[in-house]
């Protein structure tokens, strides 16, 4: 708590702070775009995107969006999708307990065993 504040005018403090917050998040926005730009692993989306633009239907997604949304099969009603996506998003402080542990199965000895066997085949 070294030096004293530069100003005590509430309005100026508000303006400065808001400006810094916007500058930082805008820079972060461009950093994210930069990350996407340099991403060596991204799939070439050019041929697909215009197609996806025209009919923004749920059924189309099943080919392109495994990362964000569950693969949706024909015949699944929107209600079910809503329920599932709500559940997926319900990862607040109180709601993540089980979902996470399941992920953990990747670290069981069986995975190590699988790796070992892979190694072995080389």
């Amino acid at each position: 708590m070294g030096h004293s504040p530069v100003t005590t005018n509430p309005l100026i403090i508000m303006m400065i702070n808001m400006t810094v917050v916007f500058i930082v998040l805008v820079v972060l926005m461009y950093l994210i775009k930069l990350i996407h730009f340099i991403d060596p692993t991204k799939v070439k989306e050019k041929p697909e995107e215009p197609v996806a633009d025209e009919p923004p239907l749920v059924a189309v997604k099943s080919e392109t969006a495994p990362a964000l949304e569950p693969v949706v099969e024909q015949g699944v009603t929107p209600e079910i999708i809503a329920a599932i996506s709500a559940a997926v998003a319900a990862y607040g402080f109180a709601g993540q307990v089980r979902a996470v542990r399941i992920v953990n199965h990747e670290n069981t000895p069986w995975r190590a065993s699988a790796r070992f066997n892979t190694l072995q085949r080389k």
Partner: protein
Amino acid sequence: MEALNAFTVSLQAVWNDSGFSAFTMGNGIMILVGLVLLYMAFVKEFEPLLLGPIAFGCILANFPNTGFFGEEMNVMKAINFGITNEIFPPLIFLGIGAMTDFSPLLARPTTLLLGAAAQIGVFVALGGAMLVGFNVHEAAAIGIIGGADGPTSIYLSTKLAPHLLGAIAVAAYSYMSLVPMIQPPIMKLMTTQQEREIVMKELRPVTKFERIVFPIVATIFISLLLPPIAALLGCLMLGNLFRESGVTDRLSDTAQNSLINIVTIFLGTGTGMTMNAHDFLRADTLLIIGLGLVAFMGGTAGGLVFGKIMCKLTGGAINPLIGSAGVSAVPMAARVSQLVGMKSKPGNYLLMHAMGPNVAGVIGTAVAAGTMLAMLK
């Protein structure tokens, strides 16, 4: 005879040393405050994980003669050490980072602007607090309530205005729980039916590369610019790396389960322990609660206004309802966006779209806290 005398004297001594004899009106009222908070936590389900321990800590702190605040070390003093030295909030953020999926933000980075706009509530409350007479440090700590991020609020309060910690924490967690009541009227007031019916284009998939590089880049950039929040933001992003790396599931699991739970118990109880009559039972507390509401409403409005601007600029591609999610209160505010969207047009699923501004709001509030610390420390 002598025995009876000794007996009476001893009983009297026990009573004299008891909390009853030293009990003050202030203790009584604070215990009542604790009971009301317990009711809010356990019956009304206002963020029970935090408000429950806070309430119980408040009750414990108001028993006289417990020695909790004496010279000798004890469990409550040890917990208090973790509060006053800002040890717990970063560890909570480690777990929150491990729970957070930044994908919706990475898929549509412009939603960061909504997370920034929603911080207007923080600064409106800051200005308001200064106008009603709080000094600038207190005002900054009060303003952060509008960020709707408990650990950030506690972190900033302990640094700038420790005597307000109890009131600020209580206000922050209470309003976070009230988001489903505070936001919808404002959302309906500030948007048109036509805007609310906008169906947004689905999000593009996000690669693992992006999900791993983002927390690293964000940590470096923000920590260099705003060193006072390096611990907070660094822990958030380290936790997120545990989650996204795919090879540290053990650490991710622990960060978001046993570690965060243990720290939550201590953080909550320790925060409640700071609530004494002298600091809490004053008009300032009511002002703080009022300003907190202003902050929440201001943040909601700020996000919505910016949502409307983005809606205009993008030719109607953005539903302004996702703007209000920028206050964070993850994931409650995003669900509110979804809820209001569904009411306007059944089948309009905004949840994933609202998660972008929602997690952006966490970063935005941390940045706001860092800015205030950089200016005021």
